[in-house]
């Protein structure tokens, strides 16, 4: 019993000291996939000597674990900054008053629509919502409304609109089309027997295997599979004149209010917003589109200025997402 107590006391001391004694460190919560974000954070650590304590999100929680944690910890923040894989969460956190403004010098050159005007969050390295299409599909879809076309009945798939970037996409459609048309679209998905998957990755896998003809996914899900040599091609939706365009979803980085290590956090924000980081994320398997002009995009994906972009206000999408949830839950 004595040894057990002694052992437990030792473990206790080790566990506490580790986190209290280091000044030259920064804690970041990350919703971007660990396989893509971790190498960058390690590179920052190596470059600056600042220790990065990172907590990553999981697929099981649909990427909302750290977001909920940030909200719950807001009275005594543990994170110094947050790297979200889309800007809506940033907006929710801003509205809850748990972010601090910071305008990084490296944010110069990033288009204004991808930044909060007061500097509460800044977008970088974006994904685009894109169709993955199986090579054998004779007629490729051209727009999101093709999901409702009878010729594709039972041949298409989409990730569960209740979660992730598909919810953002539905909120974007809501902002452009209004409630009635969104309802029609969602009911149409059911009527046209569009399959529902648990996530974009699964949708892309099923298209790649030929189970379905096409799916609307994030560009990183598509490029990962393209690079594996899977038989899919990419189609940018709604690119004709007068059409709504493709939804672009940037990453977003933000400083937490009352961060414990604000200097180190700002350095890391600067690092993430730099052109070099965007170039690295473009060349990695996540193949993200740089928002800085002049940075080479991934070879499989068009540059930002070559895509007809859906015109949305990310700040408004955050509240639209809450408004459409009851509709989504009613239908799915």
């Amino acid at each position, binding site marked *: 019993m004595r040894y057990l107590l002694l052992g437990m006391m030792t473990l206790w001391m080790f566990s506490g000291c580790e986190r209290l004694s280091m000044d030259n460190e920064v804690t970041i919560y990350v919703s971007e996939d660990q396989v893509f974000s971790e190498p960058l954070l390690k590179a920052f650590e190596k470059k600056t000597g600042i220790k990065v304590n990172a907590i990553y999100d*999981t697929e099981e*929680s649909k990427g909302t674990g750290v977001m*909920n944690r940030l909200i719950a*910890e807001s*009275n005594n923040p543990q994170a110094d900054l947050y790297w979200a894989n889309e800007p809506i969460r940033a907006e929710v956190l801003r509205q809850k008053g748990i972010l601090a403004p910071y305008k990084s010098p490296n944010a110069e050159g990033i288009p204004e629509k991808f930044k909060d005007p007061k500097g509460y969050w800044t977008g970088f390295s974006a994904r685009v919502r894109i169709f993955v299409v199986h090579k054998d599909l004779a007629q490729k879809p051209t727009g999101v409304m093709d999901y409702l076309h009878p010729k594709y009945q039972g041949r298409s798939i989409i990730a569960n609109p209740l979660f992730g970037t598909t919810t953002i996409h539905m909120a974007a459609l809501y902002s452009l089309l209004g409630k009635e048309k969104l309802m029609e679209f969602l009911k149409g998905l059911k009527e046209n027997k569009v399959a529902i998957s*648990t996530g974009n990755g699964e949708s892309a896998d099923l298209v790649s295997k030929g189970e379905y003809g096409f799916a609307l996914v994030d560009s990183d899900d598509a490029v990962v599979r393209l690079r594996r040599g899977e038989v899919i091609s990419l189609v940018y939706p709604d690119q004709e004149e007068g059409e709504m365009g493709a939804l672009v979803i940037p990453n977003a980085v933000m400083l937490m209010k009352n961060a414990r290590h604000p200097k180190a956090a700002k350095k890391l924000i600067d690092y993430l917003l730099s052109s070099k980081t965007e170039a690295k994320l473009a060349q990695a398997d*996540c193949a993200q589109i740089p928002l800085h002009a002049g940075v080479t995009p991934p070879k499989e994906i068009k540059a930002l200025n070559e895509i007809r972009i859906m015109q949305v206000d990310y700040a408004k999408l955050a509240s639209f997402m*809450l408004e459409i949830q009851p509709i989504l839950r009613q239908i799915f």
Partner: protein
Amino acid sequence: MNWLRWWGGFSSWAIIGGLSLPILMIFYDLFHDFFTVDHLMPMGVWRLLLNSLALSLGVALLSSFFGLLLGLLWFKSNIALGWLMGRIVWVSFLIPPYILAFSWLLLFRQEGGLEVLFSGFWGTLFILFWVYLPISLLLIERFLSQIDPDLESSALLITNWWGVLYRVTIPLLLPALKVSFWLIFMLTFGEITVANVLRYPVFAMESFTQFSAFYDTQMATLMALPIMMVALLLQWQIRKGLTVRWLRWRAVPSLSIKFGLLTRWLLGGFSWMVVLLSLFPLFNLVSLIDVGSFFEALDRGTWALFLSFRDAILGSTLVVLWGVILAYLFYKELVWGANFLKGVLLLGFILPSSIMGMGLILFWNQPWSMMIYGGFWIIILGYLGKYLFLGTQIIEMGLSQSPSSLEEAAILSGASWWQTLCRILIPLHWRTLFLAWLVGFLFMMRESSMTMLVHPAGEETLPVYILTQMANGDPKVTASLSLLMVLGVIVPFVVYLFYERRGRSD
């Protein structure tokens, strides 16, 4: 005994109260300024409740029935290597259900049209049956080993084994079946990952959606209330009849059913088919793996595996240490309000893990408690809050089987209650304590939903690490990490049991 009553009451309330503060905080938050009955009636919710009840009932019945059948075959007959089969089926409990569901789905997709059969209710039932079958088997094994062989020997004088099983053994196993049914029912009721993958709408999803889509912990807690009410009702029903003394306490070898050669081969073949079927998802994972990816997983996942072991060993040891004290106090009826305290412990067990995690953050994330919140002790506290109920229940059930004559003799000889506990009850019940430890250890090894919400940076356990790697990670590495998880738990147990059995036969 009066001071003992005071001390017992105080310490029980202190332990359970301390562990439950995060839960109480969550409920205070809910009822303080939020709760209205209208909130409980959103559309479609009651249909989901029925779905969940049907699924939980199906899984609990199926797992308990097959647990009994296979338990009798593997642990009470002369079928070769039954003990080994009983360990191998733990594989499906140890693979995170999310990965297990995908693995089975992949398998059925390869078989073309079978996917339709596999999705929805039947697919979810099928997978959860495999996930929870080991729990039923473990309980049956433990209770079988304590049935007094004299009862069966006497019955064998007037009837055959069928009669003995029907009239003696199975009736004596009823409490184990009840516990198995209740436990599996509750675990299924709170499970969402498998149902989500296979698109079967369940009630627990409501709580998860509130949490993940709206970031609304209050509403998520509210949506968990019906789950908790069902659990409390069921617990109240199931507990009736569990305290009857029916087990032996002497260490006498159990009677074994002797099958003839042909029957033995046939049943052995059937058993190995069941085992192979339980291993299909693992085979599927292994088929993805190559040597390079396995070594990469070994390199990246070993630390996380070590952390999983550290947390699970520490957590389950504390569960047993506190469980012994609490169970003894409950069993001796030394605590005022024992049923209320048990209810609080049960609440911790059935509360959805994500809400438990939020409670831990809200309570422990304070400047004065960073020694706990900033380190792995927050994970241990979460494990204790969640699994102390299981440990206490198992130990109390074991203690209730002791003949009181032993304790009375000890007290008459001048032994204190502490000496009675340490010198008589604990040595007498070490197998029960080991069972409580093992159950706690296995549950803690696979826990991810709460751990991922509270773990400090660099303290990811292996299940959490696997789930973070699943998002666009190399499927080969993810599969290798899952294999590492299974091997990390199964291999030490098989080796331990092998030596234990060899030691006994020597």
